[in-house]
């Protein structure tokens, strides 16, 4: 009885192996669709949908793989060739290539040139034109506090704190402790936040910190935020400028596999003009429509592209 089962399994198994080998060795189709992906956040879905809309409107077949996962997952996927294009931030090159100390990352043009060179050499990935926006770490204060005390930049904040201003910041533990985050701001602008002026949260979710400031939970009147967060304007917060340029510049740009670009060279010409129009206020407004108003990211992307004349 046992022998019969073994023989049947051997035959069945061999048949399955042969069939799958035949299927697997089928020639790769000539014009495979472009697999567009994105990270699992609001801006990722906005930019990813824009890429899909622009490519589709110009006759390039796309496959929707948006909201795939965190940076690590999406980056691993493109390097493994499982996706073809996704919007990435130039500043992240510091972490991909373990080069955090390099001051080039603090400059938009230098950072972009550096990450473009490194990725082309090491991973055969091409960075297309970045958007003139900076989605970096920032400190945002309540609009009423900023207006009353004339706070426009972090330098103004330092002066106001020295004069005894009432300030409480909601931020993630990572932002408070990382030497290139809050400590870097404090050192550059000459202020120091005491423990009573900080509310430490576990995760890096800026929506939570922004909500805390908007609702003045536990006396919070400032929040850790990202430069292009959509919830800022809607919840009455303003970002304080960083004139000394402490943080690396995180400009969003399409990152595409060289093989895909070779197959569809038009992608470059189609996406570059679109990304060039996406400055900070524009991204903030569009992100706000998705995050605060709850509109569909695809709809917001479509309406914007149509209004600007990139698609019919």
């Amino acid at each position, binding site marked *: 009885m046992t022998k019969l089962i073994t023989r049947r399994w051997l035959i069945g198994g061999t048949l399955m192996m042969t069939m799958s080998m035949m299927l*697997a060795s089928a020639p790769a189709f000539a014009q495979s669709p472009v697999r567009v992906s994105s990270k699992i*956040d609001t801006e990722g879905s906005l930019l990813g949908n824009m890429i899909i809309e622009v490519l589709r409107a110009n006759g390039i077949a796309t496959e929707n793989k948006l909201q795939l996962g965190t940076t690590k997952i999406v980056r691993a996927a493109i390097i493994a060739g499982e996706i073809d294009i996704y919007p990435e931030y130039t500043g992240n090159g510091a972490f991909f290539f373990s080069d955090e100390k390099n001051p080039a990352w603090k400059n938009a043009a230098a950072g972009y040139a550096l990450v473009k060179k490194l990725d082309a050499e090491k991973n055969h990935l091409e960075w297309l034109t970045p958007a003139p926006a900076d989605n970096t770490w920032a400190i945002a204060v309540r609009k009423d506090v900023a207006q009353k005390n004339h706070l426009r930049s972090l330098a103004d904040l330092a002066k106001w704190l020295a004069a005894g201003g009432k300030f409480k910041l909601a931020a993630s533990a990572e932002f408070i402790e990382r030497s290139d985050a809050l400590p870097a701001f404090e050192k550059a602008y000459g202020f120091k936040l005491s423990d009573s002026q900080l509310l430490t949260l576990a995760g890096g979710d800026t929506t939570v910190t922004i909500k805390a400031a908007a609702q003045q939970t536990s006396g919070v009147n400032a929040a850790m935020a990202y430069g292009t967060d959509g919830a800022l304007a*809607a919840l009455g917060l303003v970002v304080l400028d960083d004139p000394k340029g402490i943080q690396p510049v995180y400009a969003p740009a399409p990152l595409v596999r060289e093989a895909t670009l070779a197959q569809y060279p038009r992608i470059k010409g189609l996406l570059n003009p679109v990304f060039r129009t996406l400055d900070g206020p524009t991204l903030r407004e569009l992100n706000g429509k998705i995050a605060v108003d709850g509109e569909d990211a695809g709809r917001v992307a479509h309406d914007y592209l149509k209004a600007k004349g990139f698609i019919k």
Partner: protein
Amino acid sequence: MAWVKNRVLLVLVGAGAAAAAGLPFLTHAPNRLVLGTGISLAATIASSAEAARAWALATIAAPALLLAASVFVRPGRAAHLGVIVCATVLLTGFVSLAGIHAAQLASIANELAPKANPDIARTSFGGAFWIVAVLSWLTASDAIARLGLKPVSRLLATAAVVAPVLICLAAGWLDQLSLLKEYAHRADAFSTALRQHAEIVVASVVPSLVIGVPLGIASTRDNRWMNALRTPLFAGLNVVQTIPSIALFALLLAPLALLAAHVPMLGRLGIKGVGLAPAVIALTLYALLPIVRSTAAGIRQVPRPVVDAATGMGMSPRQVFWKVEAPLAFPVFAAGLRVATVQTIGMAVVAALIGAGGLGAIVFQGLLGGALDLVLLGVLPVVAMALVVDAVLATLASSIGVR
């Protein structure tokens, strides 16, 4: 307390009344990110239009009073049926009143500020709603259980309790509620996520059955191999079960990516570092323990004399297995299958973090974007799926049971 004939009902009705009085029925927020201000049930009814107020009195006040009265009625077939009907009407009334009031708030906002986008404000369910809804469901389930129906009839009765709510949903009465607005903005993504979730669950449970059932049967056999391997096998499965799911997904990412890089054929078959493969492998491993254990337990609880009698009657080992052991072991096995499936449906939510899609994608979008109703949009279908699958499997198990 001799005049209290139904203590369970007393507790449920008491808790429901306390919640309805003390907690908000609905919450209204200016946008989907900020916390809303609560609106109590009394305030909702008071500020409703004439027709809505009459509807609320008929579908909420009347059944509530009848349920309270049923506490003092001796439990009998008629009393149980009455309780089921009242609980169903109460549940439907709560849900429909929420929908009607949300529509009313939306139309007021539209009148007051026609140029602003009225779609932004959000009306969500409050604490009182959830508690009373769950308690009505429990009341109805308790009464159905007390009726002592056959398994299929019990399933149909349970479906009849939720049917009116589903009709409200389909008729569009609930469309102005925050949950439905979130759905409306991503209907396609939701259907895709639902389909992917079902695919992940099936792709995990089927292999775990294929591997687990033979393994469970083999582990009950008394031979040199199994006697040596039995303890390590169950110890191994126990250890796998204790690994947190997200950790196991993360642990599988690297080896699978390495494998896919060196064996390109696997990549073309779909086994890659991210996506479905690590999720399905991990979920299969998690489902193995309940299935192997329940198969083994089921076979081991078959009385030895029955097997001896069958052998004595001249049945071959194969006939003994299929005609005696399997049918007797089936109920225990079915219980294990229920556990494994419900567990997989819940765990598949985390699979979205590694790119496998499914309803978890919607949950995490909501968590990362701070929109709690989006989280609900992902979680409620998972809960509903688990409840439906559990009920169907339980009915199947009872129906197929040993005659």
